[in-house]
């Protein structure tokens, strides 16, 4: 029995390592031709996985059986990423951005995915978090860690503010309110003098931890890692935290309630669910995630301007949720990672980036509305 378990564990880790090496190799390719070849290979793998039932069942069974080992191996591999990309800080930067967008998409998923409330104001909460912590840090020298909390809370407060008029409205009206709110925040950021207007806020100090500034290279185990790695590990922790929160929420009473509201609001109300409260809760949690992501972004880049928080950012995050699969926590993260990395890999087509986002959304909605990774059916274990 034991040798068999060890054998299976080795297979599992080998599969993970294989995918990890593939990913690293993909990140390190720069020529468009090779990138396309890689993509075709990935698509081929996906199709094979879908068609070859025996292999799929075996693999999913393997992963289900050794959940903890699979998770641990995955985490360990992700932690070594900065060592692999040691010579190219740009790649680590892409990973940090992917993580930031993953947090945003996870936040939006509570609304768009779980509750079916459309919100085109993600950029607003992202921007409020970024500006709040940046202003605090620049003018009052408040540390990043406190700013993280303040940025998140302030964004959450604005989420509440936005949520109240939204509760009176539904569907189209609601999306109009959120679009209008996003545009209002953008216009205000552009015109207030204390936010720096269109010039934004420069020279935002980097965070520091135990006297180690995040602007300095990180030395670990005798390796000198580029300064982006600091943020990589920070983002890694934050995404991990968000993932746990999202996962727990999804499997809690709250997540179930949100799903009930999505399926039928009137029926939910009839069952004694306080629809207003739960919808506002979704708004606040989404905004908190946005605020946290914004705070990290502002301190990471060191410079923010209203352009970073334009309407398009909201649409991009919506795209990520739809592409990944609504209400599927892992799917959403993969959607965010895909939509951050792919545009960077196709730098040659930089101009077409937004166009392609739009086309992806329209075609996905038409041909695969459930996203790449459809939401899983809730299964409750039988008491026995």
């Amino acid at each position, binding site marked *: 029995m034991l040798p068999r378990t060890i054998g299976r564990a080795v297979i599992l880790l080998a599969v993970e390592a294989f995918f990890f090496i593939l990913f690293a190799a993909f990140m390190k390719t720069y020529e468009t031709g090779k990138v396309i070849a890689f993509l075709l290979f990935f698509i081929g793998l996906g199709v094979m996985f879908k068609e070859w039932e025996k292999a799929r069942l075996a693999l999913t069974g393997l992963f289900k059986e050794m959940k903890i080992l699979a998770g641990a191996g995955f985490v360990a591999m992700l932690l070594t990423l900065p060592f692999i990309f040691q010579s190219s800080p740009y790649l680590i930067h892409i990973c940090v951005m992917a993580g930031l967008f993953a947090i945003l998409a996870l936040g939006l998923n509570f609304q*768009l995915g779980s509750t*079916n409330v*459309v919100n*085109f104001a993600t950029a607003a909460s992202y921007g409020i978090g970024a500006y709040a912590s940046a202003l605090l840090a620049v003018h009052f020298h408040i540390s990043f860690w406190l700013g993280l909390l303040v940025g998140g809370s302030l964004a959450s407060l604005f989420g509440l503010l936005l949520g109240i*008029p939204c509760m*009176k*409205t539904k*569907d*189209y*009206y609601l*999306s*109009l*309110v959120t*679009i*209008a*709110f996003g*545009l*209002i925040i953008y*216009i*205000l950021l*552009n*015109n207030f003098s204390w936010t720096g207007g269109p010039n934004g806020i420069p020279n935002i100090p980097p965070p520091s931890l135990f006297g180690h500034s995040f602007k300095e290279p990180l030395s670990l185990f005798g390796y000198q890692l580029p300064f982006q790695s600091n943020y990589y590990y920070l983002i890694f922790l934050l995404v991990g935290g968000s993932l746990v929160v999202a996962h727990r929420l999804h499997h809690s009473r709250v997540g179930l309630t949100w799903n009930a509201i999505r399926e039928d609001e*009137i029926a939910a109300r009839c069952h004694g669910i306080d629809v207003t409260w739960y919808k506002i809760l979704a708004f606040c949690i989404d905004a908190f995630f946005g605020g946290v992501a914004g705070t990290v972004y502002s301190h990471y880049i060191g410079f923010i301007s209203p352009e970073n928080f334009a*309407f*398009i950012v909201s*649409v991009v995050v*919506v*795209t990520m949720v*739809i592409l990944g699969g609504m209400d599927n926590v892992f799917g959403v993260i993969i959607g965010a990672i895909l939509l951050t990395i792919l545009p960077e890999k196709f730098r040659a087509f930089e*101009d*077409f980036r*937004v*166009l392609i*986002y*739009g*086309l992806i*959304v*329209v075609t996905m*909605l*038409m041909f695969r*509305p459930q996203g790449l990774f459809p939401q899983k059916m809730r299964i409750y274990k039988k008491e026995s």
Partner: protein
Amino acid sequence: MAEIFQQLINALLLGCTYTLIAIGFNLFFGALNVVHFSHGDVCILGAFMTLILYGLAKLLGLVTFLPGFVFVPLLILTAMILTGLIGTFFERVVIRPFRYAPLLMVLVATVALGMVVRETVRLSFPHGSNPQIFPRILPQTSFQLGGVLIRLDSLIIFGTTIFLISMMFLFIKRTRIGAAIRAVSQDTEAAAMMGINIDRTVAVTFLIGSALGAIAGILIGAYNNIIRFDMGLMGGVKGFSAAVVGGLGNVYGAIIGGLILGFVETFAAAFIPGGTPYTDVFAFLVVIFFLIFKPSGILGEKVYEKV
């Protein structure tokens, strides 16, 4: 006093533009219960279409060949028809597949479609991100009337809008297709049972709405002398806001809503000190106010949710 009159004229003009966009939103909502979020971009597309057609006409020498009062209406009419056809095409390709899908789908799809339209316009013009100069197709003279400066092109814009809107009302009230449009907006299923071709009626609705929207785009271009690819986003949101304030689905409401929005913006810019950069904020606050206290709009019927 003259100042107030001057602003009144500006407000009326702005109101006309919003009304034209809002009519489209109302027509589509009536016909399909759908909000076409890329409608604003279709409207601006009308202006860009005029720009392209004007360039073509210049190449062919039509600009000097035909007298202005023949050429300009011809130009605008062609742009209108083309934009109307594009709107119908969008309905066929992007909106119709979602007719029986959840609301969210068509909503997100049309927002994304708007993005596609904007980017296509941006990429198909050289230096598309910069404002494009709109040809001066209207006479540029102006005259003084009791201390108020009136631009001749504003008068033409105003007259055209009133003419077009009344034509549209006549069309909807008096013709067979107009009756079909009204029937479909009242009850789609009952209309289908009476033998009305729903798909064709919806297509006609989109043709009319988009063509009127094209006029709005041209008005914006002619009044400001420039157009930019991303004007459609704001235009669409404002047009939709006007439709909501007036009562979504009610075509008359579009006029009231458009005028209210136009007045709020113009007077906020003129009479609130330092308010000019914040005009859009005031407009949106009015809309949010309406949504909270009178969600059905001024002329809209109250809709009860059926179980």
